[in-house]
């Protein structure tokens, strides 16, 4: 592991909703490190806790959530940081892109306002300078006719354009970390490809660190250096993207990879699906949460939760008593 100080270091983070009925533990004991300019993919089924993690980092967890552990950004502890300090970091140093661009833009505010307000709340900028910066940012995310867009409302834009605008909003104050929660899920396939290309370009141009949330291993594999696989609120596997994709050690990751729709998949063959489902929210299993669905589960898997342990050089780690053999 690199000795360089990480941009983002998450240690023992858990998110729970003690007020819910039944009380829900959405995330437990998550650990991750992200260096400046690198990218990390959070992968898992819906309900695995990946969005909860994405929200917890900039302190945006839903009211009622209890976040524990340690989240350090540039060495600064964010858990229990003052609201004012978190506000100063959000937008300025940590950008956030939500899943649904339709819903994430305020319907009653012009695109220009939504772009410039981020800048103007963090920097003392006059309207003209903010507008110029907004135009520049729209060009950078390849929005056609950017000057006209500033005066338009979100409902006047197509879905792909809205997501580009959301990206521009998240990046306009040049943050060093961008968190994107399923940024392409709500889009058409062709539009999605364009947005993925844009992410690649922006990462290179802006030296951005990226946390990308997705349920699709293929999407993450194309964009990220490292992958973290979550299942039922816990990390089951993590490591360099290439290694995890090519040689998944956890049976869940393997199943996920098989289920992932890739363009290379031969036509006419049914996509593999994973039988069964995650434990219901609020249900805490003594053993491995994947054991009930796992083809390789033994008695020990049901009784004892496997720890996340290194399995290979290069930083790959897996939480499994009986990991798949290395290929």
């Amino acid at each position, binding site marked *: 592991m690199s000795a360089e100080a990480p941009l983002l270091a998450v240690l023992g983070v858990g998110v729970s909703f003690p007020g819910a009925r039944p009380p829900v533990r959405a995330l437990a004991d998550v650990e991750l490190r992200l260096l400046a300019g690198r990218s990390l993919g959070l992968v898992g089924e819906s309900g695995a806790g990946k969005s909860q993690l994405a929200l917890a980092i900039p302190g945006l967890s839903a009211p009622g959530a209890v976040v524990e552990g340690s989240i350090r950004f540039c060495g600064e502890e964010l858990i229990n940081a003052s609201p004012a300090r978190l*506000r100063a970091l959000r937008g300025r140093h940590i950008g956030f892109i939500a899943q649904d661009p339709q819903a994430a833009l305020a319907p009653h505010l012009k695109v220009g306002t939504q772009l410039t307000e981020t800048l103007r709340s963090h920097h003392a900028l006059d309207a003209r300078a903010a507008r110029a910066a907004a135009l520049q940012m729209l060009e950078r995310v390849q929005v056609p006719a950017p000057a006209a867009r500033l005066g338009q409302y979100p409902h006047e834009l197509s879905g792909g354009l809205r997501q580009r605008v959301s990206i521009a909003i998240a990046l306009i104050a040049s943050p060093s970390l961008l968190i994107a929660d399923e940024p392409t899920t709500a889009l058409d396939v062709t539009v999605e490809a364009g947005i993925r290309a844009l992410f690649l370009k922006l990462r290179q141009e802006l030296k951005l660190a990226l946390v990308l949330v997705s349920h699709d291993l293929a999407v993450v594999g194309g964009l990220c250096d490292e992958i973290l696989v979550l299942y039922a609120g816990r990390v089951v596997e993590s490591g360099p993207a290439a290694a995890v994709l090519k040689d998944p050690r956890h049976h869940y990751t393997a199943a996920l990879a098989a289920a992932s729709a890739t363009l290379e998949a031969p036509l006419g063959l049914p996509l593999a699906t994973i039988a069964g489902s995650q434990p219901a929210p609020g249900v805490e299993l003594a053993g491995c949460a994947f054991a009930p669905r796992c083809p390789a589960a033994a008695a020990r898997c049901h009784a004892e939760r496997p720890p996340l342990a290194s399995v290979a050089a290069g930083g790959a780690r897996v939480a499994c008593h009986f990991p798949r053999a290395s290929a």
Partner: protein
Amino acid sequence: MSYALRRLLGLVPTLFIIVSLAFVLVRLAPGGPFDQEQTLAPEIKANLERAYGLDRPLGEQYLRYLGRLAHGDLGPSMRLRDFTVNELIAIGLPVSLTIGGLALALSLLIGLPLGLGAALARRRGLDRLLMATTALGIAIPPYVTAPLLALVFGIYLRWLPVAGWEGGQLRDLVLPVVALALPTLAYLARLTRASVLEVAGLPFVRAARAKGLSEARIVLVHVLPPALGPVLAYLGPAAAGILAGSLVIETVFGLPGMGRFLVEGALNRDYTLVLGKVIVYATLVLLLNLLVDLLRALLDPRIRARRRA
């Protein structure tokens, strides 16, 4: 602006339907305004009916009424014979508009901030207190609060007059306006709270928070404008409710408003008076609804877009 004008013209057919329905409804029953005056000699009664045109066929009366209405003439009152309906309305309308308008303004000025405050203090003491009191405020109609307020502040405490209208002085206005405003105020507060809470849970508010905006800007710029939509939409019904309540309030406090003589007029078959006043009330409600619609379009670009299309 041309849109507003078009909408204003669009009220004319609606008003025409209301006038026609009201005319038919009022004239459906047998009997007339002069039947109950037993002392009237038959020939005098006939003369009176001729003078008011009641001896003509109904269709002709209707057309003549419409003709005069087109010139803004609501005709003479049939029971208060020294007055025309226009004169009676000219006396009553300013009074009713004053207390109705003030009541609506008061409900907005207090109800909106209360609702917003309750939403921000969600589930804490202030919120619970406000919700409990507003539940009470909605359940108690103005004809209960009005006399109770008069009893406490007028009779026991002697702070304010129990009744009367001396040129619309402030002290005469307080109790009627408060009694009239309370249910609307309470309802607006609850509506605002619910609406703000709903908008505050929408993804774009989380997005605004992710931008690092100040809490004040999030509430005032991102949450409040869209949350006001349902609140504004309620203003139409609220105004109609306040007009209905003003009937009672004017009775309780002895105010010379539009409601005066209306109930008596209905019981005495004073056709022209009842028709005239109902038409004015209906016009007021229609105008207010139009105003609310235009305001909502100002707040919501999507409504504007739909209208241009």
